[in-house]
């Protein structure tokens, strides 16, 4: 058994038992972050805060929500929105955060792509991040079912139908997923379980993995410069803070993060109080009705680009294209054949690739929402092809890239 001496303060007492001083040093004070970064590096913290908002608001919603097809709609729209004190606030925060979290995820992803933060030892950061993206998608979709409005019901119907895999007609698989022939009580219950327990558990574990994956390769910087972290840390600790290329995670990096977070919160709460329709689709304020299809069925905005890759093609090729769009981002570190870790604007053709991809995905997003008619179908089809061609071309574009 270890030998314990009498402690003279609570801190010391805890330190003897939990090594909190070491923890603080390793996780915060001497966790080194490059100095040469901009506010885009704070998106990780913004995401952590948004996830925190989702968890806390979710807990309060959970206190009154009823996962029952006859009660769910009214428990949300009457009990929570009108009876519970500040219930409306939790609901609005939860719904808006669920939408905004994807905006930040996309900014975070495109930052990583732009600065090449997914290669030379950072592959697992990218892959764990993509796993988080997929888990957040599942979390968002399962949560969207819970108010049991028209969009919940019909989105549930349409998305679970995808699992019949086109001409394979695996209706048994669809019925297994739903636990019924149409979305019903079993369906609502299991999505409730996924949303409030299994998916959050997986997300929290993945967040741990994502943070852990950063530890060895360290955070990238604005110029993709390879920094000798130990050497620079020595400079910093010797008091040469101005010359050192690194800063402490806390409070140096944290103070900048918190400023960005504070700006984000102003934007976020503006949406919560005055501009929430984009995240709380009006159609979902009509109770679920299996006998009445809404005139337009579309997913939330953050799924639209992949939905539009599915839609303009015939059934089976559409599903294949959709599957392609779901996995291709995972492969980015391996499809980019260039050894350069540098901002896209210094990487020749890759810069064009980056901006075309970004614009193409926005075009897909918009076309995914408008009805698939005439011009819109054509634009959607072209944009879907551009997306596929971009990814197929990536290895060839990057292979002959000049070293920066």
């Amino acid at each position: 058994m270890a030998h314990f001496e009498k402690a003279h303060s609570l801190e010391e007492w805890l330190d003897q038992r939990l090594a909190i001083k070491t923890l603080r040093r390793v996780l915060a004070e001497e966790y080194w972050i490059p100095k040469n970064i901009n506010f885009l590096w704070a998106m990780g913290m913004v995401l952590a805060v948004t996830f925190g908002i989702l968890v806390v608001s979710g807990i309060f919603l959970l206190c009154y929500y009823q996962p029952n097809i006859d009660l769910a709609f009214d428990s949300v729209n009457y009990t929570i929105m009108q009876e519970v004190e500040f219930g409306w606030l939790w609901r609005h925060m939860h719904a808006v955060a669920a939408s905004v979290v994807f905006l930040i995820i996309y900014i975070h992803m495109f930052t990583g792509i732009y600065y090449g933060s997914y290669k030379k030892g950072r592959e697992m950061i990218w892959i764990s991040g993509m796993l988080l993206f997929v888990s957040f998608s599942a979390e968002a979709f399962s949560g969207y079912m819970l108010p049991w409005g028209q969009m919940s019901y019909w989105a549930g119907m349409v998305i679970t139908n995808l699992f019949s895999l086109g001409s394979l007609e695996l209706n048994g698989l669809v019925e297994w997923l739903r636990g019924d022939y149409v979305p019903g009580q079993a369906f609502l219950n299991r999505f409730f379980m996924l949303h409030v327990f299994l998916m959050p558990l997986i997300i929290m574990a993945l967040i741990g993995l994502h943070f852990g994956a950063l530890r060895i390769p360290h955070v990238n910087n604005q110029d993709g410069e390879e920094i000798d972290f130990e050497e620079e840390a020595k400079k910093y600790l010797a008091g040469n803070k101005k010359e050192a290329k690194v800063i402490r995670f806390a409070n140096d990096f944290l103070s900048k993060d918190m400023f960005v977070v504070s700006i984000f919160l102003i934007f976020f709460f503006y949406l919560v109080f005055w501009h929430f329709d984009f995240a709380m689709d009006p159609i979902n304020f009509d109770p679920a009705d299996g006998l009445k299809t809404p005139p337009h069925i579309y997913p939330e905005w953050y799924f639209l680009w992949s939905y539009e890759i599915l839609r303009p093609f015939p059934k089976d090729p559409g599903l294949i294209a959709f599957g392609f769009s779901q996995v291709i981002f995972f492969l980015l570190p391996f499809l980019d054949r260039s050894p350069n870790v540098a901002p896209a604007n210094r990487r020749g053709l890759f810069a064009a690739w980056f901006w075309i991809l970004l614009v193409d995905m926005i075009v897909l997003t918009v076309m995914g929402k408008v009805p698939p008619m005439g011009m819109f179908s054509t634009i959607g089809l072209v944009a879907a092809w551009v997306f596929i061609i971009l990814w197929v071309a990536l290895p060839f574009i990057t292979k002959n890239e000049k070293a920066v």
Partner: protein
Amino acid sequence: MKELKILAVVVFFTLLTYWGVEPYAHSVMHKHIESKGFQYDDLKPLAKKGDAARGAQTFMNAGCIGCHGLKSQGMPAPMDPNAAVASFGVNPPDLSNAGAVFDAKFLANLIANPEHALMVEHKFSKAGRSFPMTAFYGLGGDKDQEVADIVAYLQSIAPKAEEVTPKMAFETACGRCHAVHYDKWTQIGERPKFKHKIDELKFEEKVVDYQDKLTKYLGKLPPDLSMYIRSRGEHYLKTFMEDPQELLPGTAMPRVGVSKESAEKVIEYLADVGDSKRAERDSVGKIVMIYLFIFAFLAYLWKQSIWKELH
């Protein structure tokens, strides 16, 4: 300054995406209609000035009370809602508040030619059915004058515009077809509190019976409006009330002919029911915003104090 440039790029693409999926996509999906101010320009203008006292006489002689109640004048409806719906398909409205809730020109046109004013010809005369309310053919005198008199009479007995509450406007204009269960409203009136299960079941039976008959009459049960303020929004509700056919061609919903003020009251009622915390949302929002601006300011000062040693 580099950071501001990056921010500008991020904001640009964010706004572009927002514009595409919200204002632009919705303008493609939904027909945009502007309200015409509840003028009902297609209807014949009220040419004559009515006389309320004469109108009372005409009202009685024309047989209106054969179907309509006038509770405020001590004349209840001749039938209860269930009996009325069985005979007519819909419960004829009590007219106590009609003069205040409905537009005068609309009322005059309704009396003279109900199907046309209500815009339900496609459901009745053109579909080989007859509309339950018979047109007023006149009592032998100047028909326009008689109609104007009836309208004047209804206006004279109605409460003043400022006395009409949002709920009264809703009940008179919408409440016989639409339930609002968040406010305990059913098509046959407010759901009472019950002491005995049997009374509750009896009431329930009446509601279902009424709804079944109404469904048969209209082809479809009109929706519960509890959350319509959020699912349809103010603009849609307003333009839909003014002219249902324009937004939903072929719909069974008649043009109800509310005045502009009453339409606003109906919308206020629906907002009170479906979005009751909107005022709180606004006031809490302001406080949170003030808090956050100070939060951001302090975060900025903290960051500056730390980073001045780093640069």
